[in-house]
């Protein structure tokens, strides 16, 4: 499956301004399998364990670098390197229309912290072509995963004018998301989504957020995709 989408999301985590950026859509499925539900916040993953209603496997997430010169709010804070997080996911469907998912990831490049994402989605087919899903979200992050983005050390405080802040880990955010997908025909599908996140704990209390940003983070996305078979002989 290939496609293209656009995402209107905060400039950086904790920002109060947002920007529209293009996103590629690409997925490969094994011949003989069909597309399963995927939430907008799901990281790329492979199900190594698949009982149908219970699936688990490795997961990976890439977090782009945060460059101070791209946004005036970050002046004096320095850059935060790009991060790669690796870990595992488990998802469980108690019924066909309800999915719960947990991702547990550890930073291996960039930060060395731990991130846990919890989500639940009610998946409601309105008609065969139209599916609506929605549900709550919650994220927990360790201190090592939080402090590079929300902590302000003495040097940063001096150069940015923001007060010193020692960001600790803990409950990071809660929120909700909804997604609508419409299958135009067996090949073409269009989808859109909204994800709202409210920062919690030290992420919300950071002077970067309280003085120059916002704890309310909303992402809008839209995209269309084309599915096709590739026969390899």
């Amino acid at each position, binding site marked *: 499956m290939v496609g293209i989408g656009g995402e209107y999301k905060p400039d950086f985590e904790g920002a109060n301004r947002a920007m529209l950026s293009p996103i590629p859509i690409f997925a490969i499925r094994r011949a003989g399998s*069909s597309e399963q*539900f995927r939430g907008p916040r799901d990281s790329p993953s492979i199900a190594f364990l698949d009982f149908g209603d219970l699936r688990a496997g490795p997961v990976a997430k890439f977090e782009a670098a945060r460059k101070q010169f791209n946004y005036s709010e970050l002046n004096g804070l320095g850059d935060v390197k790009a991060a790669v997080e690796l870990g595992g996911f488990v998802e469980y*469907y108690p*019924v*066909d229309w309800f999915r719960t998912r947990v991702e547990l990831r550890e930073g291996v490049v960039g930060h060395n912290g731990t991130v846990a994402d919890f989500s639940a989605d009610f*998946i409601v087919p*309105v008609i065969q072509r139209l599916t609506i899903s929605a549900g709550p979200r919650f994220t927990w992050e360790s201190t090592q995963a939080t402090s590079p983005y929300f902590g302000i050390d003495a040097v940063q405080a001096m150069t940015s004018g923001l007060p010193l802040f020692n960001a600790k880990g803990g409950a990071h955010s809660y929120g909700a998301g909804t997604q609508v997908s419409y299958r135009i025909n067996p090949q073409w599908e269009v989808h859109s989504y909204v994800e709202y996140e409210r920062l919690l704990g030290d992420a919300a209390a950071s002077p970067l957020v309280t003085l120059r940003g916002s704890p309310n983070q909303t992402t809008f996305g839209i995209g269309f995709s084309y599915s096709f078979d590739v026969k390899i002989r």
Partner: protein
Amino acid sequence: MRSRCVSFATILLVAVSVGGCAMFETGQTKLQAVKTVGIISAVGGELSFATAGLTGLNGNASQSFPIAAWGLDDLIVQQATTALNGRFQVQPVSYNRAAFAAVKDSPVTPVNLVRGDPFKKLVQTEVSPQGLDAYIVITKAKSNFGRGAGKIEGIGFVTYRTVLASYNQIHALYEIRVFDGKTFDVIEKRSAPALDDAVEIRLPGPTRQVDDSYSPGRGEPVRNENLHRAITDLIVRSLSTTLSDMHLADAR
């Protein structure tokens, strides 16, 4: 430095191309040497009846009904024999159908990759006579259904419930393997493709939408002639296409 990178990329590209050609040739060459074949079918013993989409709280439970009386496996062998007879000498074989039908994929995906083809040993031990050039094994295939957790397999009937309506779909998902009669390696393998794109819930195999009169929930499924005819039609139409795609039979 740049020229070395370009050279390396060129060598890699050539190596991959040659490797691909070699793989292509291996399957084709092996098939060219095949004269005698035996056909094994273990698709049509059971019909599953599942619900998906907005199901009740009982989850993804599905029922199975015996439909061996329809003789679908005999039909498959007969149809495949007719399709292959021009090119190969098809010889009757006896086999343990239940053993072939009982094979399941492991839920641990890497195990399936590591353990090799699950039917290889069965072709060696449960089929007679041995010594033919190749054995064509036709067995159930599996797929997800809808957006949720539902999985379907082989021959079945699915009711997909949405907020505004319910839809019924029948399916005959199967895959065909060609085993070398000497080494018992898989020479070719393919799943039966979808027949057309008319259905809303796309499946990677023969399927079509049907009305309630086809439902196995109405009386004994084995006596439902509508259902029997529709499933037979799916198999007959898809089998010749699949065998042609595998270059085992002439395109019709």
